[in-house]
């Protein structure tokens, strides 16, 4: 089978797997916010069709896009359009599934991208293993269902790297790299760090390729010089004017914008001249210049909220994420409330949540490229893979970076670790086949590889199948599964989507109009559960245990006070029902004592 066919097969398999397994997945706190924002965006797109002149006005845009403007609009636009088309117009999907459909597409797209990148180093079976392994991590499979941004940004990150790698060899891909980077910026703010993984490689390769040609070297210096000079001038402006004044005077006709335009124009012109002198050097540098120009352009164009106020709203957006809150998080028996956080948190959390049969080949794969780096045998591609495997993990590992969110914030590292795992699989299979071959004729290398891949994937598949809809609770064999993680003192769950595990009981056992306190669930989640037929519409959500006949408590160490308040308010310490995953309490239902 050709690589192209396999890539498509992976895409469709992933897409339908996600679509078919979507229904049991509850709505996370953030997902319900995105549902609401997406619907608001969709109404604006409908206005754009019916009344374009009205739609372009600042008031209409602000009304539609102001809610949840701490995240860019790409995914919410797609969620909203999908909702209108597949639920409101065609009525072929329930509201949540229609909203989530674009998320499935982005998650499914990840597999052919991983496959394509892995094929640069390894054979088809190992590359298929790498691609599938992304969805065999229970938490990743869970997040792939959500109308959220963590998996889409991971996909856009990998897409950008994919395009960049292609651009080194093929014409026009430098444009695609810039566009892909723009889409990544439009998906989530993690995208800014893609550049960090590429710049060292581009500078090194550009330096190597222009060695022989003084003209190419001069252009190489010129391109870098223009952008460095532009950045220095911005620095000077900040020093002279101060940040707030610089932003306040950053208008369409201002030196600030002119500097950006001139820098990009001169940089682009020099890069174009380089093409005539040294095509390989051009193909190395052009993607970065393209990212500098097309990235912000796509980012600006995709988000109507920026159209009338590009600078101050972008500045607010960046500032929001630079000063993000720290949420309390349970880790090894302690509540992490504020920085500095443990350096090893990310690595430990990865080891405790990624199935060990996938984690070990990832570690061995990374060890392999590290060893090749020490031996000075590392190829440029391997360097890029290793840099991207490390980037997000290293970034979140910094003790001052917010540590909540389980593993989702370093998802962009995982596809590259999957790629490296494929190498371990291939080497290991070759080693086993070489050992077993003389003893058993059937033990050919391809067969051993497939068998080993199946064996490595099987435990991860079982774990995923058992807990994927409660993915934020999943823990690996190293942790001892969910029970082991509970004993270790790890965060039991987050995002409050596990409520879905007790809805059937509530629907069956609540009396009409029962007053229920849904701990940690906001009104949007309850609204969405009712709108999607998952929760009876007559139950009345209330604001606390005191007003409730029934309390649905989400087990978190940082919220034990709420459970004990429930004992106090309801006059009982005895739950009536609960979601207990592998015996670990997740959602606990209390009823007022008669």
């Amino acid at each position: 089978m050709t690589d192209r066919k396999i890539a498509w097969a992976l895409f469709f398999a992933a897409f339908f797997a996600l679509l078919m397994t979507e229904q049991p997945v509850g709505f996370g706190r953030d997902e319900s916010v995105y549902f609401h924002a997406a619907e608001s965006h969709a109404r604006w797109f409908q206005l754009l069709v019916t009344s374009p002149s009205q739609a372009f006005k600042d008031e209409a845009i602000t009304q539609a896009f102001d809610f949840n403007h701490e995240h860019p609009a790409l995914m919410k636009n797609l969620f909203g359009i999908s909702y209108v088309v597949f639920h409101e117009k065609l009525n072929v999907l329930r509201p949540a599934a229609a909203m989530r459909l674009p998320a499935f597409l982005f998650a499914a797209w990840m597999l052919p991208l991983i496959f394509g990148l892995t094929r640069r180093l390894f054979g088809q079976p190992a590359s298929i293993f790498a691609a599938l392994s992304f969805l065999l991590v229970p938490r990743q499979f869970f997040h792939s269902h959500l109308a959220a941004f963590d998996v889409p940004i991971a996909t856009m990150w990998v897409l950008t790297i994919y395009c960049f790698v292609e651009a080194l060899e093929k014409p026009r891909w430098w444009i695609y790299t810039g566009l892909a980077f723009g889409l990544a910026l439009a998906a989530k703010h993690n995208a800014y760090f893609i550049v960090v993984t590429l710049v060292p490689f581009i500078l090194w390769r550009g330096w190597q390729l222009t060695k022989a040609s003084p003209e190419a070297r001069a252009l190489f210096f010129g391109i870098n010089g223009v952008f460095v000079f532009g950045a220095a001038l911005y620095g000077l402006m900040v020093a002279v004017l101060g940040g707030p004044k610089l932003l306040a005077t950053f208008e369409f006709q201002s030196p600030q914008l002119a500097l950006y335009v001139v820098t990009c124009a001169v940089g682009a012109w020099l890069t174009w001249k380089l093409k005539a002198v040294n095509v390989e050097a051009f193909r190395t540098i052009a993607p970065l210049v393209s990212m500098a120009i097309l990235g912000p352009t796509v980012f600006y164009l995709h988000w109507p909220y920026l159209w009338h106020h590009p600078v101050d709203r972008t500045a607010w957006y960046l500032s929001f994420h630079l000063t993000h809150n720290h949420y309390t998080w349970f880790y090894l028996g302690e509540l992490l409330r504020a920085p500095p956080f443990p350096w090893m948190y990310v690595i430990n959390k990865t080891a405790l949540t990624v199935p060990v049969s996938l984690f070990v080949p990832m570690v061995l794969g990374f060890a392999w490229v590290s060893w090749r780096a020490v031996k000075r045998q590392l190829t440029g591609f391997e360097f890029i893979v290793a840099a991207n495997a490390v980037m997000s993990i290293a970034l979140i590992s910094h003790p001052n970076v917010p540590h909540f969110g389980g593993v989702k914030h370093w998802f962009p590292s995982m596809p590259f670790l999957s790629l490296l795992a494929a190498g371990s699989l291939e080497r290991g299979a070759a080693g086993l086949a070489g050992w077993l071959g003389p003893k058993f004729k059937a033990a050919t290398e391809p067969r051993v590889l497939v068998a080993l891949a199946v064996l490595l994937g099987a435990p991860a598949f079982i774990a995923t199948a058992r807990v994927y809809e409660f993915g934020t609770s999943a823990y690996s064999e190293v942790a001892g599964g969910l029970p082991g993680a509970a004993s270790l003192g790890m965060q039991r769950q987050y995002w409050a989507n596990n409520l879905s595990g007790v809805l059937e009981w509530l629907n069956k056992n609540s009396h009409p109009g029962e007053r229920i306190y849904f701990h940690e669930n906001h009104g949007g989640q309850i609204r969405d559960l009712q709108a999607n037929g998952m929760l009876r519409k007559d139950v009345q959500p209330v604001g606390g245990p005191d007003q409730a006949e029934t309390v649905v408590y989400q087990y978190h160490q940082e919220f034990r006070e709420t459970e004990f308040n429930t004992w106090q308010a309801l006059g009982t310490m005895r739950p009536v029902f609960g979601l207990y995953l592998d015996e670990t309490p997740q959602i606990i239902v209390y009823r007022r004592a008669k």
Partner: protein
Amino acid sequence: MNGAALKNLSRAEGLLLLAVALAALVFQLWLPSTHVAEADYQAMAQVLAAERQPGDVVLLAPWWTERARIYVPEGLMVVGYQGSDADPLEKYPRIWVLSQPHQPRSGIGAFEAAFNPSRTAVGPARTFGNLTLQLFTNGRHHPLAIDAADALATAQVYLETPDGNRQPCQWTGTGHRCPNGKVVAKEWHEVHFAPYQCLKLEAPGGATRVVVDFTAPAADFSALEAGYIWEYGAYKDGVTPSSVWFEVNGQAQVMELPTGSEVMHRLTGPALPEGAHVRLALASQNPNARIVCVVMTGTRNAR
């Protein structure tokens, strides 16, 4: 590295992957066998219902196996929180340890090291599938003479300024409502993951103290524990330390609850003579987030 060495390395890598895959597969297939069947919980509950005595307690091991709460007969206290292995449970003469030793990382060895000293097993352990039930006598038991939270209905509660001026708080049937709107009551609260049914006191602010004043029966020992509830102990900004007074017949001890401290603090008091006049008080310069759970007990030697 030569070809032979590479070959050996690849073989080792393959064997390692194979071993990890098989171990993980065995784990995933075995894990569901650690679940506890509903029927086993019911059988355990029947034994508890038949053999329980007043003052018994059920202790969970591992501490998080709280699904048992659904099944343990009503009125029988169930204890399970991070750190409960070492809880002296001194109010309780007998302890039923309900354990799930087959859980991954169950830590039964560590549990026994913390729990077993001064405890004596009574009869054989009963097993119900993956549940094990074992009764112990509690050598750390001290009969309770008084718990200040239980004395609240008959106590006098008031706000007291440094010059001795007192503003009484009114008994509402469930607690004492003070002139500043705060209520002193017996409530369940969390201090560092553990549940306490305690006196909830809220600092009035400034040098004013909220005081609980009552008469206690004779006791061989007395102690006061106090800690900020929920996350308030973790606060460092916009809060001030609190002082907790424990006064017996005019002899006062003061304990400071510093900011940023989430744990329960303990003060050992004197033996209480019959009819001891006990005053408990709380003050903090800034009342913000200074809600304190106070457990004051008088206990006797076990006979």
